[in-house]
């Protein structure tokens, strides 16, 4: 059996989880390719070749859909035609666009999990942040310059998300109400509240629309794009997300507040014995967590989408829980995992168009990744790797979440 070094040990299970999920996804692709399988009696070798070819085609399309075709990008850059360049790099930038909110909310989940709080309320905090950004953008329209509106709306979205996150933290600290219950319930309240506002408020609602969506905000305020090309949506929200990853990492591992959060997350009694305030850590962690989710909502509604709608979050809150666990609750890991999820999402769309394999296969693969990460013992036995446990007593949240100074 292999013994694995400490650095590798950290990423071994996640990497093998992804690999295993892709392999199993390949098996499903082969088994559902009935045209190819029909030939198995007459031409077994050809069937085998066809099977391998099918999987390669599918994953090839996925890669191209996620990151673009390198040859095409080079050719386009050589011609210098803006429209060509945009078309060539669009898969990559769209991947980063879907990665951005995943990073924010993944970080949000990581902070709360580190402090021992299971924040299932990312969706609700994101929606409240988006609503606050929408309302403030419309209210501030024409009152202050657009660049100031941009800063104000993102700040207000962050504060609104933080307030929404603070509620379950406060309830837990003061009354012991379990945050899993309260955050899930607050999700319902948030989405129904947004629905209520969008259906009843003439100030926010898009005029003449039959569905509950807000007015277009792009005429009022927009997040500046990173690359100025037609159809490219990638904006500075992505950069802010990366900065937040650095900030969260710094907060967790370099500051006394982060030390308190992690200590309380591992053992609230030991934290209390050491003179820390466990309730304070809960409220702080949930507020920070809600703030990051709210910021994601702000950038989505002001930047990427430009309009508040009920399906804005699209289950980001739940995907973020999965990717935060995949990341071992490490901010750097969150960025990588978010990129993986973003790439799978974008690549899956392209795979569906090119090869007719439904997007559902991607959901299948993503679900497998999560399952394997949640059951590291399974991965260890499949791949016959022997990995020493990181710590004899496992953190409450995940076996891979133990931190270092």
């Amino acid at each position: 059996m292999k013994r694995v070094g400490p650095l590798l040990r950290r990423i071994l299970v996640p990497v093998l989880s992804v690999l295993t999920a892709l392999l199993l996804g390949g098996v499903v692709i082969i088994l559902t390719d009935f045209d190819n399988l029909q030939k198995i009696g007459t031409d077994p070798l050809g069937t085998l070749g066809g099977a391998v070819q099918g999987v390669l085609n599918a994953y090839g399309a996925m890669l191209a859909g996620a990151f673009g075709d390198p040859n095409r990008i080079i050719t386009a850059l050589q011609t210098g035609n803006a429209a060509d360049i945009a078309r060539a790099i669009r898969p990559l930038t769209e991947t980063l666009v879907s990665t951005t909110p995943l990073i924010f909310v993944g970080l949000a989940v990581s902070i709360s999990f580190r402090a021992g709080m299971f924040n299932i309320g990312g969706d609700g905090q994101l929606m409240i942040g988006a609503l606050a950004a929408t309302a403030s953008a419309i209210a501030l329209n024409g009152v202050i310059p657009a660049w100031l509106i941009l800063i104000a709306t993102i700040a207000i979205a962050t504060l609104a998300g933080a307030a929404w996150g603070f509620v379950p933290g406060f309830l837990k600290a003061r009354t012991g109400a379990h945050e899993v219950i309260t955050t899930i319930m607050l999700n319902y309240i948030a989405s129904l509240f947004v629905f209520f506002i969008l259906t009843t408020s003439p100030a926010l609602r898009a005029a003449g629309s039959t569905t509950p969506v807000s007015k277009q905000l792009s005429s009022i305020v927009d997040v500046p794009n990173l690359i100025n090309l037609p159809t490219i949506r990638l904006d500075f929200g992505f950069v802010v997300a990366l900065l937040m990853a650095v900030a969260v990492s710094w907060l967790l591992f370099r500051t006394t507040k982060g030390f308190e959060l992690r200590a309380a997350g591992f053992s609230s009694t030991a934290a209390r014995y050491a003179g820390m305030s466990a309730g304070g850590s809960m409220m702080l962690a949930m507020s920070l967590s809600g703030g990051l989710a709210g910021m994601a909502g702000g950038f989505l509604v002001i930047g990427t989408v430009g309009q508040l709608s009920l399906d804005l979050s699209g289950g980001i809150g739940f995907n973020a829980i999965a990717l935060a666990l995949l990341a071992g609750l490490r901010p750097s890991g969150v960025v990588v995992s978010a990129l993986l999820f973003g790439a799978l999402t974008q690549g899956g769309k392209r795979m569906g168009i090119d090869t007719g394999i439904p997007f559902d296969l991607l959901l299948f693969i993503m679900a497998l990744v999560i399952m394997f990460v949640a059951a590291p013992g399974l991965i260890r036995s499949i791949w016959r790797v022997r990995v020493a446990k990181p710590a004899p007593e496992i953190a409450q949240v995940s076996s891979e979440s133990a931190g270092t100074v």
Partner: protein
Amino acid sequence: MRLELRDITKRFPGVLANDRISISADRGKVLGMLGENGAGKTTLMNILSGLYKPDSGQIFIDETERTFGDPVAAIEAGVGMVHQHFMLVPVFDVVEAVALGAETTKDALGTFDRAAARKRIVELSERYKLDVDPDARIESLPVGVRQRVEILKALYRRSDILVLDEPSAVLTPYETEELYAIIRSLAADGTTIIFITHKLNEVLEVADDIVVLRRGRVAGTADPKTATRQELANMMVGRDVELIVPKGPAKPGEVVLSIEQLFVRDDRLEMAVNGVDLEVRAGEIVAVAGVQGNGQTELVEAITGLRTPDSGAISIGGKRTEKWGPRQVSNLGVAHIPEDRGRDGLISPMTIAENYILDTYHEAPYSRNGVLNLKVVRERAAQGVKDFDIRTPSIDTYAGALSGGNQQKVVVAREFSVPVQLVIAAQPTRGLDVGSIEYIHRRLVEQRDAGAAIVIVSTELDEVLAVGDRIAVMYAGRIVGILAGDDATYENLGLLMGGATYGEGTAA
């Protein structure tokens, strides 16, 4: 049945846990197996109970070689284990808990024949004077009785060889005496008993033969009729140890801790500390003796700011602190070594360096304006590891990966890393081996000689007698007597603690 292990060797990656260990125990004899934590006792017993397979070596039962593929095979061969941590379903009653996995059935449907099981349990219980109510729920039973249920479980499965792993670790002195009586009666009836412990008194008290393990090998054997505690301790540790740390007479100075008419409620809101008066002076060690559950825990929590007293006054260094929180108290220079170090004193999944700053992280030099100075943290932690002889591969090792003794050294190193005027040490050596006990006692005496006031709360009479300059005995929430260390004996302390053992409300 006669048990013999021959040349058992078991290797784990990087560790030779058992190195050609040979032991034997005759029918009806008690073999005391003595060794420090990490000496290989538990590995050996896991081999005997079928959890591990030895790399080489043989197991003989009544001169027949046996190999155990799994624990079931070991049970069928007559080997019963009583683990240190009980494995009982809390909501079951005794009959259900004992019969679980070996249920007698009365029809083809597999209906549990409770009457038959109950009858057999009552018989066994009477025969070996185990004194267990077969219909009581497990969760309502005191720890000592739960252990008897575990023994019943083994007997119910017709074990002729009974392995007891650190059986007294969770028992009060009185319960331990009762356990000895049960062991003697089992042995008299022909059961072979392996008694694993690191407590010297116990093997001398109850064993017929003693085998001492050290670093995976048999370090020697001894006859309990002639062996002394000192000889056994030296054999265990491999050098001359001091069972009683030498200390000069105390030079008591100013009163540092003063407690007046203190009343404290426990979690069930019952009065646990019932009017305690106590003064502790600089330069003396006051040992608080007593059977577990007589208010010591709540007294310590009140002093350290973890629990608000109902009424009464606590002064530390002249300041009234009964309404203060843990951090305020700690800032006065109060070191607290908690009773449950694994749960309250350390955070197992954090590193030694992080645990080293667990209650000082917010102060200079470890942080400034809320930002940690990791360089200083690492330097100081490395120094602490060196000063306190903490055996660890590095300061980045998780605290939970250390042995109990080294974990306690991390706690002590942290608590003594700042100047202290008062030390509150609750059960500071519980579960530690002889070498670590010596070390911790030495450090406490050092602090005393440097002028700190020391309170040691302990249920171990040996510890109380070894380090206490004065000994206060707690019973039912009161201090029922204070003796000078020189006047205290097992007998007069036992008498003072004794009422607690037989009286009401002592289900510890």
